[in-house]
């Protein structure tokens, strides 16, 4: 029994689940409106978007790199999606394909440049952040696309009880990433490269293929998040993605990811997003200054890093 308990304590997700459970319980008791259908719907909507952003970063953290351009890719895909419908009158499936292609292309560019030049992904994605964001602003001249088809708007605002339909898209992606990282050869190779690049190369892993694949997946996840944001906001806002940076890192780090690579936890990342969503909601219910969430997120990242140091003193 104690051995089982000790094993639970050592997992990435158990402590987070307890923290989430305690927080939710405390809120449910102190604020009955927390459990109202509408409030749960609001939280799940926020969760659906954030979890894609977090996974987009997590895939890159797995190979031991960083992607500062997650938000910029999301924003560019969002305006490509909205713009192709408004300007060219493209049908929705074609617009989705355009947005996704933008995400895949941006990711492939990030991956190819980091791999073939051997440059630090930080500086590469800082440059591409400016390029993607710059192209976004250049095309839109900072004006949103308002003319979104009714079907997209309806989907973004639909409610099945307390469940937003966009949640199913996010859950499908979570499941896909889970299967990919756990079961597929490429997914295992991702972690191998992040853990020890040289050892992976010597074992016959094609580093270039893995690095580019990770960035392409990251781009696709960011693009999907961007398009979901369009459906939710009901307009193609050029500022979509501007505030994703902190949350994209906070969730994987809280979830126990090692920024040096080689270890990520999908369940931990998902719970990290759930905890951040809960904190956001708590601040609203408690009428706290909404900017306090930035302060709390910063503190939470530091706490998570300090805890992982305590758990695993290197």
């Amino acid at each position, binding site marked *: 029994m104690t051995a089982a308990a000790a094993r639970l304590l050592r997992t990435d997700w158990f402590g987070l689940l307890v923290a989430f459970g305690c927080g939710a319980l405390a809120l449910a008791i102190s604020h009955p409106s927390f459990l109202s259908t509408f409030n749960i719907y609001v939280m799940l909507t926020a969760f659906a978007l954030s979890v894609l952003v977090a996974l987009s970063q997590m895939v890159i953290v797995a190979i031991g790199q*960083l992607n500062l351009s997650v938000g910029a890719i999301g924003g560019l895909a969002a305006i490509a999606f909205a713009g192709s419908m408004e300007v060219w009158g493209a049908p929705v499936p074609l617009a989705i394909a355009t947005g996704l292609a933008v995400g895949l292309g941006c990711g492939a560019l990030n991956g190819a*440049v980091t791999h073939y*030049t*051997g*440059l*630090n992904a*930080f*500086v*590469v994605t*800082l*440059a*591409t*952040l*400016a*390029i*993607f*964001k*710059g*192209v976004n*602003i*250049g095309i839109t*001249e*900072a004006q949103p696309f308002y003319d979104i088809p009714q079907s997209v708007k309806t989907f973004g605002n639909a409610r099945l009880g307390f469940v937003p339909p966009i949640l199913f898209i996010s859950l499908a992606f979570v499941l896909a990433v889970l299967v990919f990282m756990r079961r597929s050869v490429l997914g295992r190779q991702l972690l191998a490269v992040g853990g020890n690049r040289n050892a992976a190369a010597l074992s016959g892993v094609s580093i270039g293929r893995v690095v580019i694949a990770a960035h392409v997946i990251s781009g696709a996840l960011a693009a999907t998040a961007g398009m979901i944001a369009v459906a939710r906001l009901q307009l193609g806002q050029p500022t979509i993605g*501007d*505030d994703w*940076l*902190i949350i994209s*890192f906070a969730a994987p*780090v809280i979830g126990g990811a090692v*920024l*040096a690579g080689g270890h990520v936890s999908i369940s931990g990342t998902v719970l990290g997003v759930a905890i951040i969503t809960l904190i956001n909601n708590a601040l609203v219910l408690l009428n706290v*200054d909404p*900017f*306090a*969430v*930035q*302060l*709390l*997120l*910063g*503190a939470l*990242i*530091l706490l998570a*890093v*300090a805890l992982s*140091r305590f758990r695993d003193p*290197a």
Partner: protein
Amino acid sequence: MTTDATARRRGGAAGPGFSALASNEAGLLLITVLFALLFANLTPGFSSPFNVYALTRVLAIDAVIGFSMMVVLVTGGLNLAAGAIGVCAVMVGGWAMQVAGLGVLPSALIAVAFGAALGATNGLLTVAMRVHSFVVTLATMSLFFGAMIIATGAEAFNALPAAFTGLAKLRTVFFVSSMIYASMVVGVLLWLLFRHTLIGRQILAAGANPAAARLSGVPVERTIVVCHSLSGGLAAFAGLMLAARNGAALPSMAGQLGMDWLLPAFLAPVLGGTLLTGGSLSVLGTFLGAAMVTVISNGLLQLRVGEFWVQAFLGLILLAAVVLDRLRAHLIERRRA
């Protein structure tokens, strides 16, 4: 001109004359001058007195923002929180001037000291947690910025004394803004620090090879804390110049979480030849890097290429610069082999 841990690594056999011409700084200067001549020929607006004044004012600020990142890059770290620290320090300075009624100089000193203290916090956390400064400064940029917004209620201090805002309005010979001299003085002080002081040499040694430096008795942890507080102080100084230019201390002057400063902060030192891996920096290069970026973005604006496209151009320049630098290092290695 490049200040290196090992005295003269880039001199080589080609002789001092050739290496001076082939140096990064000379190249930057040449490109900047060529662009300036090109723009001056293409559009009369570029060399107009007002534009020279506006351009040098932007350059003065961007150079100090670049210095603020450079002094952390030399340790092999980085400071994502530079913009957030700059804004926080300016709000403290604005409060001191407008609400507490202190003089301009004491207020500025308080602001710079506050910035240095925030930077020192980054340094201490980095050392204590033994993690890369990326994750620490990512967390503190959110922390500092969030705290600042709550403390100020997102309200600006826009009744700053004329003695302060007047500092940004002075024009000197050829309509050059007086602020450029302030950033030059900062640059010279930094050059002296890294060239001629013990702590400066220790920082370079620790940045180049922390393990070897530690074995040679260099207090590596102390150099990291010193660099981060220096970075915070410089960010505060850049923030003060920006506030003087704007005529107000604005919480939004560096964008969401201070992220608008990230691109200029990295562009100037990276173009100037400061290595991201640490141990080598160039103060003059950073200044010239900022000059090149300022001239190109100002010229593009004057040409009305589309003010919305400037950011995309700057991103392309950064990408091209790092790729070319990589290529150059590759060629040098090949020639040696």
